[in-house]
Each structure stands twice: as C-alpha cells, then as structure tokens.
C-alpha cells in the first residue's frame, strides 16, 4: 500500500478510536552482563567480550547479575508498579543464530514488576496516565550482519557475521496496558510516553537510554476500533522504532493505514511491520498467522528471585525525584513557561542547566548559554548538547567572569569558543587570547580622551545635551580597544569627561 492510498488523519479519527500498546526495551548500563562477568562496554572488537556463559557453550550456567535486578526493581518502583515477592526466569525457546543457546532467558508469567502507571505531560501541559502492564528482565541477543543479500536480511545473503558481544547484555522490557482514550493525540501520547520513560530511566541512572545507540528500542502496537465499540481491532506491531519522532510518525502512519484498510472493507493482518525513517511509512514484515510457540517454561538453571520487602522499601525511599515533578519544580523556580520548559527538555539541557546553576551561575544566564550559543553549536555539529566539550562548571565560570565585569557578552562568546576548541579552562582562554575587558582606568581614560579629541564635533553635541550621541564615541573606544572594554564603563567615562549627567 502506498502513501497516497492512506485515509487522511482527520478522517481516520472521525471514524475510529486508536488503541495503542507500547513495548520498550532498555539496555541496562550495568558494568557486566546479565548472567556472566563479561564487560558491556560498547565499541569493542567483535566477540572479544564473551565467555563460555554468554556464548552458551555446553556445560555453562547463568548466574543472575544482582545490580540488574536492583535496577529493574527501581524502574518498577518509579513506574508505580508492584514488585513481586517471588518470581522466576523463564526460557523463551526459538532458533536464531545470534542467540547462543537458542533460547532467551526472560520472564514469562512471573514478571518482577507489574501493574503500574506513568503520568506523561503533553506539550500543552495536559497530563495523560499510561498504565503499565509489566516490566521484566531478560538478556539481549548477539548481532547478525548478513552479507551479500540485497536487503540486509538473512534471506539471500551469501554469509552472515555474528558478534556475540551484545549477547547477554541485560534488558528490561516495559510493556504498557492498552492505551485507550488518547484519540487524536495518540501519536503525541506515544511520543511523550517514550520521552518520559527515557527521562525516567536516565534520572534513575540505570541506563543512558540512547535510542540512536539502540540502548532503548520501541515496538508500537496499534489497532483501531469504530467509535462506540468496546472490542479491540486486530493490531499491527511496528518493530524497532528508534527515535521519539519516529514513534510519533509510525503511530500516525499506522492509524491512517488501518483506517484505509478498514474503510475499504478490508481486514487488518496481524503482523510485524518495519518503519522507514525516509518515507515515514511502514511495510509488512513477518505475518503472524498463529502466535509463535515459544514453549516457555521456568528456567531450571536459576533459582527464583525473591526481593525482601525491606530491600524494596529501601530502594523506594532512595528513588530520585521523578522527572515530571522535577521539571515542574524547576519551571517554577526558573519562572519560565510550559513551552519554554519543553524546549529545554527537547534540547536535553535540563541537567546541564541545573549543574551550571549548582556551579554558581544565575538561572537565566545558565539557561541563556545552554539554550542559545551552545545549542546553536551543538545543532551545527549535529551532536547532543551534553556531548559538547564544555562542562557546566566552565559555563558557570564564564557567567561569573561576565558578572564581575571581566568579560562582556562578545568576549564571553569568544571564551566559550576557546573552551570548545580545547584551549583549556575559561580563565586560560581569556589569558591566552587576551580577552579581558580593559578595565585599567588609565588605559581606558587615555582611549576615551583620544576618541573625544578625534571626534570633537560629536563631543560638542554631547556637551550640548545630546546624550544619545555618546554611542558613536563608545563605538570608537570599543574599536580602539578591539572590543575588550566594558561598554557601560566607557559610556560613563565619556559623559564624566564631557561633564554631562548620564
């Protein structure tokens, strides 16, 4: 089906009510894998971070990573879930070459966390509650690279390369209950949910949750039902939608596609679909004619996980302030609008601004630099704000230099440029580049005298009361000092020397 055959979004919503289910996989940032001591660091040579356990060699046995269990419980608690008093791992059996044991250790009917919710705030401030079905622990698979095929799929490939470095990295799968009642805002809710979840995961410090790195992956389940009906329609499952924007677009596309099929009297096929970033559309993947039989059974190599209530309560008490609560608190403290706060959030600047404030900068200054000059540079370089080679402490130092009058705005920009260029700490950059505001009264006074002497006509006007004409003299002094003078101070001096009140 091509895009032109879609029903318009408005028409789709006029007839149908979308029902969503979101499954998010998060790679935990533990130092070691879920069931062995291998490193989880990214970027290593293929198959160098493996051992008999994560390669599934005959005889090897898994041992549960306690930190991963703790991280999952913390995620569960932050999602307002109940934490199981006793739960087991289960084997999910299926064959694929990148799965060393040909079963994945997961959890089936006994998830460690279940029955919670996450409140997400939409752009206009409206809060939508997304109910959480469960959060459970499992292990990641290895990575296949299929060579020689046209599509990058295994079919038609001449051979495949397998890298098991990722095999056994701890994953948490978070599954929502069916999300109903979002109506036309369904795509926005989907996006906001994933965004909020990402913030939450980061706030908990359990993963960097970088979607572009595959540390957080989302599957979007969607179905439509005619307004006024209760039963859900047949759903499609769009796999691995890996950016916030794609989550929104994929949801929107599927609403339009489903509506077109249903309007034409067709039936939705239960299938997995692939989302294409370039066209914003989805195409059919694997048809699930009948539910795949994973032959789940309790993992006999692991003992049950039974987190004590004392431990769970201790973890609950130690949870950080949740992102939405924190955002609202900061928004009030900073005195900015919902919309402005949203921009700060979208830019990934909240923590940077807070850290800059903590390092002594005024809130408005911290926000100004990160959302202005630095955001512009990050954007230019196509990188994350946090990836810029400048620290909140350095930005705070620049703010302090401005506040004490050592730098003006222009010089501050140059200082930041120097820090970003790797020239050292702000003070070193100021020193090396000779950026300090000329505050030496003697030097400044001499420059002012010269400017007055060179522009006698203008000076006369000022003496005559045309104070606004002082700007021209200020400009001349600034030029003479190569911008390193404090313009306000220059103006003061000019008026003083000409005997005029400012």
């Amino acid at each position, binding site marked *: 089906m091509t895009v032109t055959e879609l029903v318009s979004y408005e028409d789709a919503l006029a007839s149908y009510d979308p029902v969503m289910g979101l499954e998010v996989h998060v790679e935990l940032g533990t130092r070691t894998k879920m069931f062995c001591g291998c490193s989880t660091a990214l970027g290593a040579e293929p198959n160098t971070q493996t051992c*008999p356990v994560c*390669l*599934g*060699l*005959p*005889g*090897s*046995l*898994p*041992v*549960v990573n306690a930190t991963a269990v703790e991280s999952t419980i913390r995620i569960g608690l932050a999602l307002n879930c109940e934490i199981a008093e006793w739960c087991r791992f289960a*084997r999910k*059996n299926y*064959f694929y*070459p990148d799965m*060393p*044991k*040909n*079963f994945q250790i997961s959890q089936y009917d006994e998830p460690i966390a279940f029955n919670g919710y996450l409140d997400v705030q939409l752009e206009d401030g409206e809060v939508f509650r997304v109910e959480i079905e469960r959060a459970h622990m499992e292990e990641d698979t290895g990575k296949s690279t299929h060579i020689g095929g046209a599509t990058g799929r*295994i079919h038609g490939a001449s051979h*495949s390369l*397998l890298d098991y470095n990722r095999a056994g990295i701890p994953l948490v799968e978070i599954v929502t209950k069916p999300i109903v009642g979002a109506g036309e805002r369904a795509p926005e809710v989907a996006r906001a949910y994933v965004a909020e979840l990402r913030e939450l995961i980061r706030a908990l410090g359990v993963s960097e949750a970088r979607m572009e790195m595959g540390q957080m992956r989302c599957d979007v389940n969607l179905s439509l039902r005619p307004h006024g009906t209760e039963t859900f329609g047949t759903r499609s499952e769009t796999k691995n939608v890996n950016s916030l924007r794609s989550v929104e677009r994929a949801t929107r596309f599927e609403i339009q596609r489903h509506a077109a099929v249903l309007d034409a009297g067709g039936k939705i096929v239960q299938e997995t679909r692939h989302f294409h970033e370039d066209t914003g559309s989805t195409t059919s993947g694997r048809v699930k004619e009948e*539910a795949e*039989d994973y*032959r*789940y*059974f309790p993992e*006999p*190599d*692991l*003992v049950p996980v039974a987190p004590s209530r004392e431990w769970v309560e201790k973890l609950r008490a130690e949870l950080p302030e949740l992102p939405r609560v924190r955002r609202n608190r900061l928004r009030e403290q900073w005195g900015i609008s919902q919309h402005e706060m949203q921009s700060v959030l979208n830019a990934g600047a909240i923590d940077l601004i807070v850290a800059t404030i903590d390092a002594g900068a005024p809130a408005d200054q911290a926000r100004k630099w990160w959302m202005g000059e630095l955001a512009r540079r990050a954007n230019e370089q196509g990188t994350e704000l946090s990836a810029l080679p400048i620290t909140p402490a350095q930005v705070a130092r620049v703010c302090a230099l401005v506040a004490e009058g050592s730098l003006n705005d222009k010089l501050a920009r140059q200082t930041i440029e120097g820090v970003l260029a790797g020239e050292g700490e702000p003070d070193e950059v100021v020193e090396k580049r000779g950026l300090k505001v000329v505050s030496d009264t003697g030097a400044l006074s001499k420059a002012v005298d010269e400017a007055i002497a060179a522009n006698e006509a203008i000076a006369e006007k000022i003496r005559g009361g045309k104070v606004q004409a002082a700007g021209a003299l200020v400009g001349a002094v600034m030029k003479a000092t190569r911008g390193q003078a404090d313009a306000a101070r220059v103006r003061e001096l000019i008026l003083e020397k000409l005997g005029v009140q400012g």
Partner: protein
Amino acid sequence: MTNTSDLTRLTAAEIAERIASGETSAVEVTEAHLARIEAVDEKVHAFLHVDREGALARARAVDAKRSRGEKLGPLAGVPLALKDIFTTEGVPTTVGSRILEGWIPPYDATVTRRLKAADVVVLGKTNMDEFAMGSSTENSAFGPTGNPWDLTRVPGGSGGGSSAALASYQAPLAIGTDTGGSIRQPAAVTGTVGVKPTYGAVSRYGMVAFSSSLDQGGPCARTVLDAALLHEVIAGHDPMDSTSIDAPVPPVVEAARNGNVEGMRVGVVKEFSGEGYQAGVVQRFNESVELLRELGAEVVEISCPSFDKALAAYYLIAPSECSSNLARFDAMRYGLRVGDDGGHSAEEVTSLTREAGFGPEVKRRIMLGTYALSSGYYDAYYGSAQKVRTLIKRDFEAAFGQVDVLVSPTTPTTAFPIGERADDPMAMYLADLCTIPTNLAGNAAMSLPCGLAPEDGLPVGLQIIAPAMADDRLYRVGAAVEAAFRARWGHPILEEAPAL
C-alpha cells in the same frame, strides 16, 4: 592379578596413603593404570579418550610437590576416570555424541577444576549414553561398553564407562552424573559403589546439561570410603552454579570411617517390589534388610504411593528440559557442521547437522519434550509432571518423618545382554524405576553391592536413600553394610568377577 602388590587393585585410600608416605610414586601408579587400560580397554571400551600425557604430567607434578615437602591433597596422585560429560580444557569432550565430535572445550568444569586442585590424576574420559540418555551405554555414538562381569552384557548407563572402568581395575575412582539413576544403576550392575549426592551438592558448571533440574554429578568407586573421599573433593558451594547449595558439605568421610546402623530406623519402600523384579535381586535385597536388622537397625515398611507415577513424570520433565538444553547444538559455534558447502541455508545446515549428529534416543527425547512444552499441552504434561514431583517430595518428607533412611533394590534386574532392550525404550526406562524418585525430589542416594544373583551370578545393588543434605547417612549405613558383607564373603565382591 590377585597379587596385592598390583597397584591397580588398591583402593583410592590405599594409593593416596602410599603416595603420601613415599612408598610408591604417583607416576608409578599412573603408569600401572595406563598399562591396565592398554591391556583391557580394547575389550571393555570404558574410555572414549585416554589423556596419557596429561595424566603423566599431573602425576609428575604430584611427585615433585611431594619431594618439595608441599602439602598434598587427600587424593593426591590417585587416578580417576572422568565421565565425558564434564568439560576439560584442551581435552576432547563429546558427551557420547557425534554432534560434539572434535570439540575441544576452552574451559574446565568446576568438578574438573576441583579434581585438579586436589592433585587427582585424570586418566581420561569415559563412555556414556549420548547426552546421558540411557541405561546401558548402548546409546553412545562411539559404541557400547562391556560389563567386566560379562562382556556381552551392559555395564548400566548412562555412566557405563565409569562403572566398567572401576570394575575392570582401570581406575580406582570415577565421576558420574545421575539424572535418573545414571550413577547408581551402573554401580549396581557392575558391583561397584555409586552416590548421587543431594541436588546442588556438586556444581553442575561445565557438566553438559541433559535435564538441569535433575542432573547431579557424584562419586563412583569400589569402596564406600573411596566414594566419600571423592565426594568431599568435588562437593561444596560454587558461585558459578546458582542451584549449588551454599552450606558445608555433610561429614561424609567421617561417616564412611564410622559405619554403624545401631538404633537407626530403616524404611523398606513397599512400592519397589513385585512384578518385574528378578528373583535373585529380591533375594539379595531381602538378605540385606535382614543384615540391617542384625546390625541393630529397626526396619519398618514404608509406603510412598506417588512413586508409581515417578517414571511417567520423569519422562515428561527430563525430555522437556533436554529439548531446550540441546537447542544450542546448531552447528553455528562448535562441534559438527554438516552441509556447509555454500549450497545450504543456515537453517538447512542446522537441520542436516542435527540429523547426522544426534542419535535416535536423543531425537526421541527432543521431540517428546518439544511436544510436552507446546502451548496447549504444557499444563497437561509439564505442569502435571511438576505436580507429581511435589507429591513425590511429600512422600519422601512423610517417610523421613518416620525413618532415617530408606532402602530398596537399586534396579529391578541384573545386567541385561547388550542389544536386548535396545529397540524397546519402555523396557530400558524400567531399569531406572527405583532410582528416579530421588532425582525428582532432589535428595541423596547410594548404590552398593549386596551380593550376586544366584540365577546369573551377576551383581545386585542395594540402594540407600537419605533426606536432602543428609548425604553422610548414606555413608554411615553403606560402610556398615559393606563391612558386614565383606566379613561374610571374606573378600571384596569384585574378586568374584572373571579375569579379563
């Protein structure tokens, strides 16, 4: 061969003592056993792989250690036959299967590591039913093993290589694994001693899995004391095995040195008798019960009504777990690889390899287990079997509320002829009738010789069953019975075996 100076006739305890005292060297002992293997194993086929160089190197290291005056382990220099189910770094490990032919493991099982740490000399790897599935060792992909009592008969299974190595004096110690009786049944039919410790007592790390919730490694020997000495070396908590018990090993050696049943309450399992039990087996068992009474035990009959369902439950649980455990043998990473000629897809290579690499019994169990775990059948099969397991545990709990140990014949018959049951899986499965409940419940049991069946002159095994974590009771009772029989017979039972 009856010359007591023959090093291969000594017990492990005696060998360790002689080496420790300097009376003989580990190299001499190892060479004597390697020579014995050379002489008889062509007939017996107990070993799949003899690690001659590795064994001699270890023996030399033990002698060097002694000459430097360093402290030696309790079994230093004692040769051992290791079931080919434990991984051995740099030494082939096949699990009796073509699918692992040529695989050289890059790591040692915990049991292997502990044996090395105790200065035990591993002679080689012993034959077994493929993936430990069988009761005769006929399912080995590398040919059957003969029973030293009668080479035309089976040595039991799956650990027939280990039991035959002991009974033919190729090694004084061996390691087995017991999922449904694979240590005890071979011990019974070869006139040797075998112990299935409490589940979790011996680490399963590096022991190729058949049925994870049932598999348990354990010691095999010719005497109760030797088994205890080996038990102590291989048992104990292992952080690499989550199901390993984090508690001290019961005092098995102390118990084996102080055999005594006076005042003990012994239960005879009522369900393990009747149809299917060979007359000579029943006779020797009854004599054993009589002996226990004479030695001062109080004997009562105990009923364990759920035991009748044990075999059925076992043949759902074990195949289910094995269908998942064996899924990893897909030709992608190690072992056999068939059809990798550029003309077959990955899926086809996996299929062709499994077709060629797995034997019929393994395929049968994979299929049974896959079916039993299927959605729609899970509750009826795997789920019900787990319920039976709970009932069996309760039967044991009730029994051990009344008695200290239970006794039964280890297996209903003596060694059967090679080929007799090969095409009759049900007849083969019955060999494990008396041993399976212990695996399902996770407690401990031992088999030791209690005489020869009059009708065929073949060994009969007495099974002693103890509660979980009370493995020492097996040795206390076993040592007392062994001593009494020895006194009655005037010699170890193996001396009645024909010369090879």
